[in-house]
């Protein structure tokens, strides 16, 4: 008494959001049925397991047929095969491109290559995200990367327009693309405490300030690659630590400003030279691709960790960095104000984001 065939097709495509999520999460049909039963669908409606199975199968088939369209979302709007209301389309696309933070954290900064894809089963085992879902997410990253790679114009806007994503999701994808392109190291143990959102915010800062696009907004890859000229100019900042007088002068200016304003003043004073050397060294090394990759780990090691061990509060950090940046302007022999601002602006924001109390 086998059911040989069982289909249900609505003129307006019927899609249950819960089942869609289960499908996206990579549940098999049977697991999805189980999950739905556990969620209590049967109680709210007089139905049995067979009905649920049949419904789940139908929906899975629909999603599979839709998947091709979801991969190029612009098609979804003017395809004729499925009649889906616009707000439904938005939901479908948004959810299809949504990702697990735990998963993305694992691949962030990695090359989106076949090699990485092979490691997905390990990531799946580690994060608890099903392999199917991992693949979908990974393929999404790769697809977005491929498309925007060849486009001119602002990265976030390109992603938003080509994949019809919400602003938030488009920014996240921009971050993922940016990280993948620059291969920032994010997997080190010291960086484990940082969430994807932390990195995404940092990426936003970097994209907005340090890329080619920050100065010229009509070049290829403008938002993906860092501004080479700028990185070159950063070498000039070396004077701040190389010139002993300048360093001392800088320190005294900062200390004068900070005195009495924070409990951590003693530590600040003691650590000033160390911290300053750290930040300026990061700046001067950024011409090396290798050092660009280590940007975040360097920030943590050279600045965040020392501060944390001295129990600075976030307010302390803010205060310190503000004065540290501003005082450099008063230094007479220091001529690289513009570069300094461009550099410190991002560093400041990144450290704020990355410094968790």
């Amino acid at each position, binding site marked *: *008494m*086998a*059911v*040989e*065939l*069982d*289909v*249900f*097709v*609505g*003129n*307006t*495509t*019927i899609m249950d959001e819960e089942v869609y999520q289960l499908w996206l999460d990579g549940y098999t049909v049977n697991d999805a049925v189980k999950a739905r039963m556990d969620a209590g669908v049967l109680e*709210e*409606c*007089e*139905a*049995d397991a*067979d*009905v*649920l199975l*049949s*419904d789940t*199968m*139908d929906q899975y*088939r*629909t999603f*599979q*047929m839709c998947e091709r369209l979801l991969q190029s979302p*612009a*098609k979804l*709007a*003017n*395809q*004729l*095969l*499925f*009649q889906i*209301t*616009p*707000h439904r*389309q*938005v939901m479908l696309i948004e959810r299809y491109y949504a990702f697990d933070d735990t998963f993305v954290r694992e691949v962030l900064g990695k090359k989106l290559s076949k090699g990485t894809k092979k490691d997905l089963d390990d990531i799946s085992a580690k994060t608890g995200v099903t392999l199917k879902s991992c693949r979908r997410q990974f393929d999404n990253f790769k697809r977005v990367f491929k498309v925007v790679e060849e486009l001119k114009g602002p990265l976030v806007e390109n992603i*938003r*327009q*080509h994949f*019809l994503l919400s602003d938030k999701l488009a920014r996240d994808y921009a971050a993922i693309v940016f990280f993948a392109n620059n291969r920032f190291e994010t997997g080190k143990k010291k960086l484990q405490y940082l969430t994807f959102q932390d990195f995404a915010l940092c990426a936003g800062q970097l994209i907005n300030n340090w890329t080619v696009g920050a100065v010229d907004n009509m070049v290829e890859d403008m938002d993906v690659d860092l501004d080479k000229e700028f990185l070159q100019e950063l070498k000039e900042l070396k004077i701040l630590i190389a010139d002993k007088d300048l360093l001392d002068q800088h320190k005294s200016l900062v200390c004068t400003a900070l005195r009495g304003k924070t409990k951590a003043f003693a530590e600040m004073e003691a650590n000033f030279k160390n911290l300053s050397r750290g930040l300026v060294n990061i700046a001067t090394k950024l011409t090396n691709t290798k050092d660009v990759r280590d940007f975040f780990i360097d920030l943590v090691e050279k600045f965040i960790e020392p501060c944390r061990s001295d129990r600075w509060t976030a307010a302390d950090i803010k205060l310190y960095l503000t004065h540290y940046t501003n005082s450099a302007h008063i230094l007479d022999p220091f001529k690289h104000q513009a570069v300094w601002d461009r550099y410190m602006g991002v560093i400041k924001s990144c450290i704020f984001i990355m410094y968790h109390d």
Partner: protein
Amino acid sequence: MPGKLKAKIVAGRHLPVMDRASDLTDAFVEVKFGNTTFKTDVFPKSLNPQWNSEWFKFEVDDEDLQDEPLQITVLDHDTYSANDAIGKVYIDIDPLLCTEAASVISGWFPIYDTIHGIRGEINVLVKVELFNDLNRFRQSSCGVKFFCTTSIPRGYRAAMVHGFLEELVVNEDPEYQWIDRIRTPRASNEARQRLISLMSGELQRKIGLKVLEMGGNAVVGYLQCFDLEGESGLVVRAIGTACTLEKLTSGSLASAHTHPNTAPASNACNSPSKDGKEPVFGEDLPSSSGPPTPFRALPTSSSSPPPFSPCKPCSRQSSSSDTDLSLTPKTEEPQSGRRRPGIFLCPSSPVLSADSLSLPGLGSAGCGHGSGPRATSPALPSFTYSDSALLRKSVSFTEDLLLAASGMGSGGSAGKEAGPLKTLLRQQTQTALEQREFPFFTLTSFPPGFLVHVGGVVSARSVKLLDRIHNPDEPETRDAWWEEIRQEIKSHAKALGCHAVVGYSENTSICEEVCILSASGTAAILNHRYMREGCLDIGSTDQRFEDPSPPSCGFCHIPYDELNMPFPAQLTYCYNCRRQKVPDVLFTTIDLPAEAAVTGKGCLIQARLCRLKKKAQGEVNATVISNLLPFMEYELHTQLMNKLKLRSMNALFGLHIQISVGENMLLGLASATGVYLTALPAPGGIQIAGKTTGDMSNEQHILTIQKRINDTIARNKELYQINPPELTEEGVGSPIPEPRHRSRLFRSHSESSDEVSELDLSHGKKDAFVLEIDDTDAVEDIHSLLTDASPPAGFHSCNTETMPGIYNWTTAVQMFTSVRVLRLSNANLSNQSLNKIFTDLCENLLKSFYFKLRSMVPCCLCHLNFNVAVPEEELIQVSVTAVAMTFDKDQTQERPAERFITKGGSETDEQLQFSLELCADSSSTNSQPSSRISGTVSLFTPAAKLCQSQLVVVHSTGVPENTIVSSRAASVDYGSFADRCSTWLELLRLKAHTIRRGSVKTSRRTQSLAHSVSSLEHCSPLTEGRSRSVRSSRSFGGSPVTMVKMTPLSFLPGTRNIKYLGIINMFFIRETTSLREEGGVSGFLHSFIAEVFAMVRAHVAALGGNAVVSYSMKDCVLMENPNKNQAQCLINVSGDAVIYVRETDQEPTASMTNMGQSLCAADGAT
């Protein structure tokens, strides 16, 4: 003179990659019409080519325009090898040939390939310039409008209903031609699609010609079907109702609004005596400008009574032979015996009729007792006896009636005269209708008052052996087959005292070389005098005379004479008006009339049945099948009856019985919507009786079952809100019916009717529908009765247009198609277990629907159309198309007085102005008023005829000259109530039953005009604020796709159809040789159905429409061979493309050409 067809290929998008090397396509397009082909340039290396071609012009005959589709082929250019086809688009240009329909076809069409499915889209522009054709002998019928809708389309008024249309064309099936061995599956599929497209074009043209010949301008209720007869060929056939439609202008809208109150009241009772005296009658009739057909020799009978023999009421020469043919087997016992012993196979009603006729005083109770003992040993001789008894009886009764009638003629007072005169009028209508070969109407709902009385369901089936169609131009055999069936239907209708058949449909089931032809409809009496203006005057004086049947119950009143009922049944006075008799149960194939008074809500009632049969070949097989048919019909009917009682309802609407044949089994599925008609008596309960009373455990068992049944009935009453006010001892003794009662007695010169009514009283309070448990089968049957689950809370279901009892629809609509195929793994199944499997299959499908649509609650599944098939041995296929519609729960109790408004089109009222063509026929009689009085004698001829054709279940073999000797037509009449006791088999279980008496007052509830127009579903994406902002910033979003709603109903709730754009009639074939890769059969069919929907929507949108109404999927033939990884499927769909606007919106004043935009605007406004 011809027309000029112009086509322009604009662009393509989402094309498939045809060149692997470049991942691109070099596409060009061939545009073909008839034998002319044009090509566009190649647009190299693009998946979104912009051809922007010139206008390709075809100068063609309008005949070709009707037959041929425009064929657009998209190809990939290949320099070195043959060009690869990407896919095709067939565009039916028929809608452009009608001035009132679409003016241009413009839009994106899916490019379809029979192997790969949809492969991208193409933007096409098509126009037609038609020149006036004044040639009388033309073969084209451009301009005739076609509607699938089985009612008068909204926005139109029927100036005239001309009658039945039928046509069929046959051809060889390309799939079975020799060439098919050497061509590719794609070529074969395309040949088939093209041929069918051509054939249906031709069919439509021919039907159109018939309409023009009749003087009409439209076909309503157009039903086209394909019979894939395999080797013997391909038949495309169609039936419909010819009408003269007039588009309602806004002016007529206003004037028409005055009608609704007066017209319906007056129509049903066109005061006869007044008609007789005044010339108004004659003037009202359509003049000779009408169709040519009706003016055949007018019934001389009615004007000159003596020659009018009671036994031969039908004076028409042309059809009398047919009538005789169908009558002879029933009346002339010796002859029928000689011709076919089969007639005695199931000669149920002769027995019953004889009983009831000879013992009129005892009524049905007597019938029950009398037949009880006989039923146990149904020996043939007794039937022969009863048959002759019947014959004798009928003659004597006829004499009585003649006497009665002549007595009446001299009687004289106006009040008394009224009755016979009314019958005379009916008589005239009848004879007028009989002038026509088939007084059939494919419509299922009518303007108020059109339907006077409904007799019951009439159906006929015939088993035929297919043979090769030798000459496609002369499809005589197939014509003859249908002719035969229709004659049968016609005679059944007559037996019910009716002159017309409404809600008529035909279908077939084919397995190998055996074919079951089925036809069914509802016998009815139509109001021929439904006039335009004069009607109102007559109506005002109407009240003085008898029979102002209120519209809410008039149609329930019996059309036959109660003394010569074709079947034993219990009649009671109408519980609504108390003036006329009604049956206890009413079965019909039509929709519930809008004006009918209903108590509570309705529900879907299904009877399901499987019967195994031995595998056989040819004639033996046909014999086996035709022997099984009556038993199946009977079983299905018993199930329906029991389930109806179980739900405490008393009428079925939209009854559709499908019997499907397979190699080793027959499937029967009857679906209908059960209703409690206020006018009909409350159904009694079901009582279980054990056979052996001694057995204690058995007794106990019976008691538990009885309790369960009683509980179910009580629960159902609550569920469906059936709580008619119980007014017990009022009934017959009430003052209103009294005078009439007496007059009737006088007229008939018979005490019997008095006794019958007496009897009704005496049995007033008994629940007596007895089911006897005498064997395990019966136990099973009762169990299966109780297994039917009622829909979950918030859901309702019906198979009619709308749900009786729900009047406040909101706008959310979800049409769906579902197909399920079950493989019976176990080879040795019994009938019982097979039944269980089949029943579960249907029940589970319904459960699935409820589950899937749970988010729409409260909602109703309307027009649930089940289709069963046995595609292969051990496979059962059920396909369902239906629509889920939401309604406002809070107001379900209230019923607007004017239902039409809520039903969706306020313009429906205009249909009130309605006249039937046959009025013209009777005009000659009307010119001599004197003759009518003398003609009273003829009044009773139909009654006499009833006696002759009282067989309910009749086996009649094919017409003798038929080449297939073994073929046999099994036919069943479902008399309105006769069904219950219709066959001797039934007597096995049915001992006696009477009717619970209790009168119901019609409750006129206040009109609820609250139209809650919810914005649950937006038709245009533009209404979605959020998406608009998204869309506006899209770089290549292109134009958004128009949302196209689809519904099997004739309307969308809360909207008005402002324009009908033409008929959609499409046939698709899909084949695959990579079944597994496409997700198995389910995946294959799922995407195919989705593709079909997409193509229908695209065509509608290109015509400028935004909805398809009266959508139906008529065929879904699936063949699979998983071992070879192959499958093939054929789907045929049809419907009416329309433009609708929200009821709250103003009709867009913008010109129709940019309908799309104005619609968006209109929708956006809501």
